[in-house]
């Protein structure tokens, strides 16, 4: 009788260990799966945040003060940039609602136009590509000359 009870206990112990092992194994698989998917979620969150910031840069480049005058988005007038990089932009300090705006042309000329800078040192900068166009003339003909440029907008860092 005593022998029988011991064997039963041993069987129950075996079963409990087996159930525990399977349970722990499934938890480990689940954790691995969660880590994998959360990495993807974090990446897409960062990508979305960046894309949202880039989309909001369009609001600045589409302002009448910078835009080419065409209906095209992400196109800025080089002559307007030349004017706005002076002290004139200081009047827009409350209007811009960002910490800094800078445009620069890529290529051999590498011209840059610092439009506005609040002097805030804690800034996070976002950038995107823009067409920098100006009217040029040759042999009496006027034509549009567009170059590849970038706009850099600084926003105040909220958390550190």
């Amino acid at each position, binding site marked *: 009788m005593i022998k029988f009870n011991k064997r039963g206990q041993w069987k129950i112990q075996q079963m409990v260990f087996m159930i525990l092992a*399977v349970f722990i*194994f499934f938890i480990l*698989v689940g954790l691995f*799966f969660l880590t*994998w998917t959360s990495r*993807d979620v974090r990446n897409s969150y960062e*990508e979305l945040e*960046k*894309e949202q910031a*880039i*989309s909001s840069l369009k609001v600045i480049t589409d302002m009448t003060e910078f835009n080419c005058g065409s209906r*095209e988005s*992400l*196109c800025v007038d080089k002559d307007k940039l030349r004017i706005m990089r002076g002290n004139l932009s200081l009047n827009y300090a409350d209007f811009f609602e960002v910490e800094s705006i800078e445009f620069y042309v*890529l*290529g051999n000329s590498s011209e840059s136009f610092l439009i506005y800078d609040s002097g805030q040192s804690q800034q996070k900068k976002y950038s*995107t*590509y*823009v*067409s920098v166009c100006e009217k*040029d*003339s*040759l*042999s009496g*003909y006027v*034509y*549009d*000359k*567009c*170059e*590849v*440029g*970038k706009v850099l907008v600084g926003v105040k860092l909220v958390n550190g």
Partner: protein
Amino acid sequence: MGKIKNNRGQQEMVGFVLIVVIVMVALMVFLVISLRTDKEIPDSVEVENMLDVLMKKTTGCAIVFEPQYDSYEDLIKSCQENKRCSNLDKMACDYLKENLRNEMEIVMGTESVINSYNIEANYVFDEELENIFSLGSGNCSGSLSGAQRIISSGGGKILVRLILCKD
């Protein structure tokens, strides 16, 4: 007594095999999901802006007269139509390949996180695909993102696709 012991052993083996099968099925489902999501190259606003701005850039090639210069978008059309830059005495396709490569190198020079690119244009007419050009540089060791632009040309359309690889 011996028969009962054998039956118990068989039952335990069946249970073990069942657990192994369930685990294998779960792993297969996980693998299928992870492989399926990795296949497509996601579109990106950043790459789309880069491609749009690049296509609008004025080149030094004038097909009819100076200063009616083509933009890269017009130049791709001129290349597809086998036209010639009248001011440079050069085929539009030759000028396009030479200069677009330089242009891409300049743009890539400002991007520290991009380690390779591929840009290609294909003319689609009556569901037939004809490659106009394909340029690329670098070895990809990161994630891909891309953008596409459609240019109407003649009776068909030109698909310009830019793919960037980021660290």
